[in-house]
């Protein structure tokens, strides 16, 4: 039987998953997935600095400080890019470890006995989320994380709905968006602010690594399932929820980290899609290649026979055993193709000699005339 706390944890994780999916889809379409990694680390510095100002670990200023730091990270990366001294991926790799290092040093020097530590931020402690409750007038209004994660989810949802057209245009054709006056830079920074807010609001509950997993893995899986932006958002939200819930139970069974198990399940979901996606999955690709190979071989066979029916050499050329010599087919492959061709009524076999049916002749001629 599921306890209330267990249900609450799954609901919180699902809220986070959907909030992350909403911004994650745009991150991966805009080729900025690694920015989520950078931001989810540097917001720690924002939290620490805001904590020094407010001296309180629950102040909403922490959220603002973190969001500002996220935007600062993006700006610093862009500033470095603009010097043209390093490439974009290098600037990401330079900026976020530096800011993260400052945060870690500040924490270990000045905030040793307060409850911010790197472990909690990186790894999250979802199991404790149900214990921080909102209580008003003696009534229990559920865990605090409902409101923080739910609020961020609503914010992201509003942003995506209100600016759907702008986001779409800025993502797929930024030049056109700029020409039409849609201010892609503004959209870009708004999106990055939301990524930071989502990272902060979520990692209290789930840790920064899970934020990255939720922002990248479900949208990537959804990207392999559809070509339509709205569907991609929907699928990625569903995959996110599935990973959150199944990850929770995996953690329950193994008695292991909840965030780690959920990240593992986002990976498992992606792997499943990567293998079995109807059009873009590995198996579908292999099947398509196999079909193309057979189709091509059938055409080759009909053309080969058609080429040699008239001549005397028909006897030499058109025997199954000779196909491996003339078409460079292995005996097994030749048998397989001849079998398929017979079943498709392209050829017929008489005493080991192959001749084209009417149908097969048509196919060969079609190819000759093409």
């Amino acid at each position, binding site marked *: 039987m599921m306890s209330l706390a267990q249900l609450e944890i799954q609901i919180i994780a699902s809220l986070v998953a959907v909030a992350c999916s909403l911004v994650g889809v745009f991150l*991966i379409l805009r*080729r*900025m*997935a*690694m920015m*989520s*990694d950078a931001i989810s*680390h540097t917001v720690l510095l924002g939290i620490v600095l805001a904590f020094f100002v407010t001296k309180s670990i629950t102040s909403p200023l922490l959220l603002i400080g973190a969001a500002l730091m996220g935007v600062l990270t993006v700006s610093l990366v862009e500033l470095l890019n603009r*010097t043209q*001294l*390093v*490439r974009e*991926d*290098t600037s*990401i*790799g*330079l900026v976020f*470890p*530096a800011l*993260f*290092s*400052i945060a*870690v*040093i500040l924490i*270990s*020097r000045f905030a*040793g006995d307060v409850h911010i530590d*790197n*472990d909690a931020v*990186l*790894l999250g402690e979802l199991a404790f989320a149900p214990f921080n409750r909102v209580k008003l007038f003696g009534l229990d209004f559920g865990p605090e994380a409902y409101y923080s994660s739910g609020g961020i989810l609503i914010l992201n949802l509003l942003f995506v709905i209100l600016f759907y057209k702008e986001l779409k245009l800025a993502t797929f054709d930024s030049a056109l968006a700029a020409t039409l006056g849609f201010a892609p830079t503004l959209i870009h920074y708004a999106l990055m602010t939301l990524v930071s807010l989502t990272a902060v609001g979520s990692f209290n509950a789930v840790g920064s*690594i*899970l934020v*990255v*997993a939720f922002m*990248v*893995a479900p*949208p*990537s899986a959804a*990207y*392999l399932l559809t070509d339509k932006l709205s569907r991609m958002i929907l699928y990625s939200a569903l995959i996110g929820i599935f990973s959150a819930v199944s990850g929770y139970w*995996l*953690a329950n069974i*193994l*008695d*292991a*980290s909840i*965030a*780690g*198990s*959920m*990240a*593992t399940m*986002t*990976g498992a979901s*992606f792997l499943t899609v*990567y293998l079995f996606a109807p059009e*873009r999955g*590995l198996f579908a*690709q292999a099947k398509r290649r196999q079909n193309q190979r057979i189709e091509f071989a059938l055409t080759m066979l009909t053309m080969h026979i058609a080429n040699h029916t008239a001549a005397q050499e028909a006897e030499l050329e058109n025997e199954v055993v000779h196909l491996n010599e003339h078409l460079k087919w292995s005996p097994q492959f030749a048998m397989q193709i001849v079998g398929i061709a017979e079943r498709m009524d392209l050829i017929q076999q008489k005493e080991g000699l192959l001749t084209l049916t009417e149908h097969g002749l048509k196919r060969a001629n079609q190819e000759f005339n093409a």
Partner: protein
Amino acid sequence: MEIQQLLYDLFFDYTLRTVALGSAILGIVSGALGSFAVLRKQSLLGDAISHAALPGIVLAFLITRSREPIVLILGALIAGWVATLFMLSIIRTTRIKDDSALGLVLSVFFGFGLMLLTFTQKLPDATQAGLDKFLFGQAATLLQRDVITMGIIGAIALLLLSAFWKEFKLITFDPEYAGSLGFPVRFLDVLLTTLLVIAIVLGLQTVGVVLMSAMIVAPAAAARQWTNHLNKMVVLGGLFGAIAGVSGTLISGSAEKLPTGPVIVLCMSIIVFFSMLIAPNRGLIWNWFRTQRNRKLLRIQAVLADLHTLALQHPNEERGHPIATLRSMNAHPEFVSLILNQLKEQGLVQELSKNAWALTQAGLAEAEQTFKKEA
């Protein structure tokens, strides 16, 4: 006094000496191999690999029940390798871009490692203690034999790097050409990536997962500013890495509660910052001066060109033109009189009478010389 004490400790204090030596080895190896990663546009690969190594470390422990560094390093190596191959196969077979593949592999492998780690920690025997130092790195826990292991593995990696130097250079800058010459590009690619994985795994215990990526990217990015030669860049990268490693160790040893890994990374960041500022030719300051000089040259040429145009329009008369005319022709009228005086000093322009300016013979020749090229 304090510095002397610190230097004394560096050579005679066991812990400090061990840690400094370990950090120096790490800096040299990651700086050298990082140069290739940065040039091959794989800066963030280090980030992904260092995260992906975690499940390998835990699995290696789970299977062997041993905490020998060499076993854990081997586990990390295999996991980092699997992650890299997985990433490359995603990029090759789907339309998912490299940044998403990196983020995906990084977070999922790390999450998986975390799950395994917490699972292991709840097993009855408590010998797993210390595995989590790989998360954040605890340089202070380095033992002499850890450093010896690091030294041997690092030396092998650098030896391989120099053995395949020419080949690696070729596949870094022109893989197609390398292929057309018959080099086994795929094999070399895997070998170079493996060496990078080795460098990363070496550093996990010292600086931890998150900061290891900086040790790959930063020394190389700093070295790149100073030179256009691969061999100089690799040597400089190793040198910068070693300097950051040792100075970071010293600084963190000089005060309480200064974790070594982050301090090393900050030292490295400072080196990068100054390299980007002051490196000759590429540095920002150098660049700024060059821009200023070019701008000034262009302004002078503009006035020269205007005078030349005026001279062509009035071919048969020796006459001067007032500053107002020249100002109206110029995009920056405020500089015109200043420039005229400079040109006069150079003997290219003369003031025929008051406020009547014209080219001298030398100025005419100079103008024809300059603007003929453009025509």
